[in-house]
């Protein structure tokens, strides 16, 4: 139930609709404009009196983008590092969250406080020493480096998301599994994890997005072979030729699959976003 529901179409509710419509247009415009621009003929992209719609729809920019940028490789790097860091961080993070949720100890509380503090540390501050560590390990510009970095950034986040889920599961579940002969770890793997699948899914999506959307870490830890798409995209700005057509095409290629996916699973996104921030 909402605050002002149950009214007929009055002046007030007409105003609400008009206002909402204006906001929708304002917020959708930039992305729609990007997509439309990517479908324009390259010459129209840099017109001094820009239009929203292309005069003819063409995929020229998408074709050209492959010439300017090894986009397949960058896309692959982004995908590969995001997926592996998600798998590792969700597994290790859930394990830790379960341990912290079921057994309280002073060390555990300290650890929990640390994960909260991590959320407030500016990424640039961690990036500087991380860069040195990655260099010392001799894994600069490798996918492994990015996976390690993303995993460590994601773990605290996963712990905070999953602890809420595990706290909501009754302890009797674990106990009955143990009576049936499971070890602690077995109970976790066979009973707790499968039940937490909705939570795991939401957490994984966010964890994946964190790695997929990252720019700063990839900018610092890679140069050629492990470069991700955001870093590749950013080079359109420093290059002497401002190739705006292919730039818009690459930006659409990078973000469009995520947009479509997020539309399909928006229910989970809403629950994940509001988790923790809104409690009754």
């Amino acid at each position, binding site marked *: 139930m*909402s605050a002002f529901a149950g009214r007929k179409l009055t002046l007030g509710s007409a105003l*609400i609709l008009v206002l909402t419509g204006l906001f929708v247009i304002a917020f959708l415009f*930039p992305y729609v404009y990007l997509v439309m621009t990517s479908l324009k003929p390259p010459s129209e992209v*840099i017109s001094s009196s820009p239009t929203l719609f292309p005069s003819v729809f063409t995929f020229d920019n998408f074709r050209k983008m492959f010439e300017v940028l090894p986009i397949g490789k960058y896309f692959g790097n982004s995908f590969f590092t995001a997926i592996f860091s998600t798998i590792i961080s969700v597994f290790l993070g859930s394990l*830790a969250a379960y341990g912290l949720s079921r*057994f309280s100890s002073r060390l555990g509380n300290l650890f929990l406080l640390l994960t909260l503090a991590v959320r407030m540390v500016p990424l640039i501050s*961690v990036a500087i020493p991380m860069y040195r560590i990655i260099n010392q390990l001799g894994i600069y510009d490798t996918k492994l480096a990015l996976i390690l970095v993303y*995993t460590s950034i994601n773990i605290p986040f996963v712990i905070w998301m999953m602890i809420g889920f595990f706290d909501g599961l009754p302890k009797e579940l674990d106990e009955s599994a143990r009576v049936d002969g499971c070890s602690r770890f077995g109970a976790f793997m066979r009973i707790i994890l499968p039940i937490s699948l909705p939570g795991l899914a939401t957490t994984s999506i966010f964890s994946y997005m964190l790695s997929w959307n990252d720019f700063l870490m990839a900018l610092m830890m890679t140069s050629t072979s492990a470069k991700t798409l955001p870093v590749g995209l950013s080079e359109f700005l420093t290059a002497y030729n401002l190739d705006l057509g292919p730039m818009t095409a690459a*930006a659409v290629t990078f973000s469009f699959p995520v*947009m479509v996916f997020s539309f399909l699973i928006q229910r989970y996104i809403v629950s994940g976003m509001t988790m923790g921030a809104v409690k009754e």
Partner: protein
Amino acid sequence: MTKSDRRTALLFFSPAAVFMLLFFVYPMFLLIRDSLFDSKSGMQFVGAENYSRALTSDRFYQSLYNTVVFVLGAVTLELVIGLILALLLSTGFKGNHFVRTLFLSPLMIAPLVCGLIWKFMLNDQFGILNSLLYRAGLIDSPQSILWLSDSKYALLSCMLADVWLTTPFMMLILLAGIQGISGSLYEAAHIDGAGRSQRFWHITLPSLRPVIVVAVLIRMIDAARSFDIIWVLTQGGPGFSSSVLSTMIYNTMARYNQTGYSSALAVLFMIALLSVCGFFMMRLWNPNKKAA
């Protein structure tokens, strides 16, 4: 708790702990150590020299000031627009779920892509924003506002992009908060003859307070840390007009290769952010004080 329980607990969280120690605690230690050395003269111990250099540098204060302006400006705008949107959607008009889904879309866009979009839209030659303003008769020529290369507008442009990207997050959190307010409160107020604005000021806003505090805190931390959008749009320029702490630290590190000085800046930034957060959490989030 038995001893074996304690050991199992340790086993459960030790893999994650090892990761965090290696890639967070150790880096923090490195950062603090680095900040005490001069990286130019072959890692010579210089004590607090990097810090005193930072604290007497105009550029540092300029970046700090810009960061504060950016955070306060962007988060205030996000809160106001987010609240308006949440209130509009909470009226529950037909199709409000679909509209909510539409608003969710910017949330999934990478900050970098958001920067690119706005860089393109604010371009002074073929940007559509100036073109629209010109066609609406609000400015004299399509080139009259140099959004990104005029030091007056550079930081404002960055805020604009940030507001576009993250207002939907604010809206979502606030909307969830509004939907959590018990309907009986409104009914009672309605019977007592409270008008729409009275209900807003006396019921909606006070009930939303804790949600607003959390949402604003989350957004303030993220806005203060933000790097991608500002880097893509202006790289901190022109001059230092939109230089924030993140971009200043990155420039010091990547362009001028001053590890020691940039580490000192990073430590100062961290201390500033942690103390602001700590202050907020103590003052506003403390459940014991809520009763007072």
